[in-house]
C-alpha cells in the first residue's frame, strides 16, 4: 500500500516536470516553426531531397549552421570548407554547454550526456533561466521535455517546409523572423529587472560582439568572444547571492 502511494507520488512528480518542461519549451516552438519551415523551403529549392533535409535537422539540430550549409550548397562550396564553417559557427555551444553542465552537477552523467546534445542558443538560454529545476527531483525530465519540444518542432517544421514548399504568406514568415530575438529579449529583461548588473554583462557581450564583427571577425567567433568576455565581467559583477540562487 505504502509503496503504491510512493509510486504514485513519483509518477505525478515526473509527469508534472514533463508538463512544466513542455510549457517552458513552447516559446521556442513558436520561434522554431517558422524558421524550420523556411529552412525546409530553401533547402528543397537547392535540390536537397526530403530525406536529406529532414536528416540534417535530426542529426545537426542547429538552425544557423543549417541555413549556412544550404547557402553554401547553392553556391557550390567544398565539403571540407562547409564542415569547418559549421564547426566555427557552432563552437559557441561548447561555452554554453560548460555553463549548462556546471549547473547540472546534481544530475546523473547518463542523463546529462544526451541533454547536452539538445543544446542550442534557445534551449540553452531558456534552460539557464529555469535554474531551480536543476536541483529538484526529476529535474532531468524537465530539461529533457523542454529540449524535445524544441527538437520535434525543428525537425517537424523542416519536414513540412520541405514537403509543402511555401506554405506561409511571405509577409508573415518574414515577420516571424523576429520571434527568436524577441524570445531572447523576453528572457533577458526579467533578469535585468531583478539585478541591474546583469544588464552590464549583456551590454558588454553585445558591444564586444559588434566590435569583433566590425573588425571583420566572422559571426561564429565574434559570438564566442563576446559571450566569454561579457561573461568574464560576471566574475566581478555577480555576487555570492547569485551563486546560491
Amino acid at each position, binding site marked *: 500500500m505504502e509503496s503504491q502511494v510512493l509510486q504514485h507520488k513519483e509518477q505525478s512528480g515526473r509527469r508534472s516536470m514533463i508538463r512544466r518542461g513542455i510549457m517552458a519549451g513552447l516559446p521556442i516552438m513558436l520561434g522554431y516553426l517558422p524558421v524550420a519551415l523556411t529552412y525546409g523551403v530553401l533547402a528543397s529549392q537547392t535540390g536537397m531531397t526530403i530525406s536529406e533535409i529532414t536528416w*540534417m535537422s535530426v542529426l545537426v539540430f542547429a538552425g544557423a549552421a543549417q541555413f549556412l550549409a544550404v547557402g553554401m*550548397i547553392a553556391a557550390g562550396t567544398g565539403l571540407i570548407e562547409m564542415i569547418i564553417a559549421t564547426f566555427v559557427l557552432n563552437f559557441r555551444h561548447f561555452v554554453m554547454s560548460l555553463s549548462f553542465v556546471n549547473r547540472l552537477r546534481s544530475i546523473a552523467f547518463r542523463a546529462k550526456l544526451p541533454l547536452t546534445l539538445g543544446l542550442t542558443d534557445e534551449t540553452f538560454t531558456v534552460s539557464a533561466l529555469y535554474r531551480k529545476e536543476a536541483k529538484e527531483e526529476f529535474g532531468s525530465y524537465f530539461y529533457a521535455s523542454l529540449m524535445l519540444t524544441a527538437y520535434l518542432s525543428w525537425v517537424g517544421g523542416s519536414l513540412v517546409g520541405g514537403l509543402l514548399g511555401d506554405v506561409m504568406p511571405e509577409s508573415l514568415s518574414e515577420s516571424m523572423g*523576429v520571434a527568436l*530575438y524577441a524570445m531572447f529579449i523576453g528572457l533577458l529583461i526579467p533578469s535585468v529587472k531583478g539585478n541591474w548588473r546583469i544588464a552590464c554583462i549583456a551590454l558588454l*557581450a553585445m558591444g564586444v560582439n559588434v566590435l569583433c564583427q566590425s573588425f571583420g571577425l566572422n559571426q561564429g567567433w565574434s559570438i564566442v568572444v*563576446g559571450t566569454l568576455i561579457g561573461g568574464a565581467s560576471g566574475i566581478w559583477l555577480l555576487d555570492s547571492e*547569485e551563486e546560491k540562487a
Partner: protein
Amino acid sequence: MIVWLIIGMAIVTAVPRFLPVFIVDWVSFPKWVDRWLNAIPYAALGALIVPGILNVKPDAPQIGIIAGLVGVLLAWLNVHIIGVVLGAIATVFLLTL
C-alpha cells in the same frame, strides 16, 4: 556528397556540445570560474540579440530595433514571454505592410 556533409556537420556540432560533460565531471572549478559560467547565459543573450536583430529586415535595420524595443517594453511590463514574441512579430508585420 550531401550524406557526408550531414555526417560531418553532425560530428563537429555534437562534439563541442557533449565534451563539457566529461570536463566538468573530472574537475571542480574555483568560485570565480563558477561566477564566470553563471554569467554566460546573460552574456550569450546579449551577443545573440545584437547585432542579429538588425538583420530581421536587412535593408531596414530600424524595423528590428523598433520591434526589439516593443519586446523590451512588453517584457518590462511583465507580459508573458509568448506575448512578448507575438507583440514583436505583430510590430514587424505592421511596419512592413
